[in-house]
């Protein structure tokens, strides 16, 4: 059953799954329930050896479309490598 929560987060999840296949952890939180303030948590071995800013750049790149069109009004990012 599609909840309000999953309706907002599913498209973002799809983009992140596409960008980080096989990620250890992928969590998308609709922080306010309004469908435009999100916190995404990504853990993947893609991040191993990358600086924090490069890790965040990859997440920003994955979500470029919803960031550009205003679907995401505010984004918090938490990234972790696996090493």
């Amino acid at each position, binding site marked *: 059953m599609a909840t309000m929560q999953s309706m907002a987060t599913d498209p973002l999840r799809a983009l992140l799954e596409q960008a980080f296949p096989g990620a250890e952890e992928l969590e998308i939180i609709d922080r306010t329930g309004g469908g435009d303030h999100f916190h995404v948590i990504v853990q993947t071995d893609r991040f191993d050896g990358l600086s*924090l*800013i490069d890790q*965040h*750049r990859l997440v*920003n790149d994955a979500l470029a479309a919803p*960031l*550009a069109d205003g679907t995401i009004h*505010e984004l*918090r990012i*938490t990234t972790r490598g696996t090493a």
Partner: protein
Amino acid sequence: MSDDLRNRIKEIIETEDVVLFMKGTPQWAMCGNSMRALEALRAAEAPIAAVDILPNPEYRKELSALSGWPTIPQVFVKGELIGGADIVQELALSGELVAKLQDALGAEYRAPGEEKTLALAEAAA
């Protein structure tokens, strides 16, 4: 107009030690993320040059085009993008922010309470 704006943004990034592009001003932050970045810089006692991007939607567009970073806030140290609120906060907690500031600005960089707000368009009225 757009060239002037881009040049002004570049000039600020290149000439100020620590720049915080934010929503609102240090006295009146209009967004939780801008506040978090500001607090992290304050805790590290960085000299802060704040730029409010809210007065004109072009400010944010031009800044993001220049930096390749889509969201606000954005923190620059000596011309280099450090990141947004999450990164700056994480670096502050781990102690790396102080190390970065010392590397970039020298061991005696601390300037508690040194905050100024810069305008992108001095006479754009």
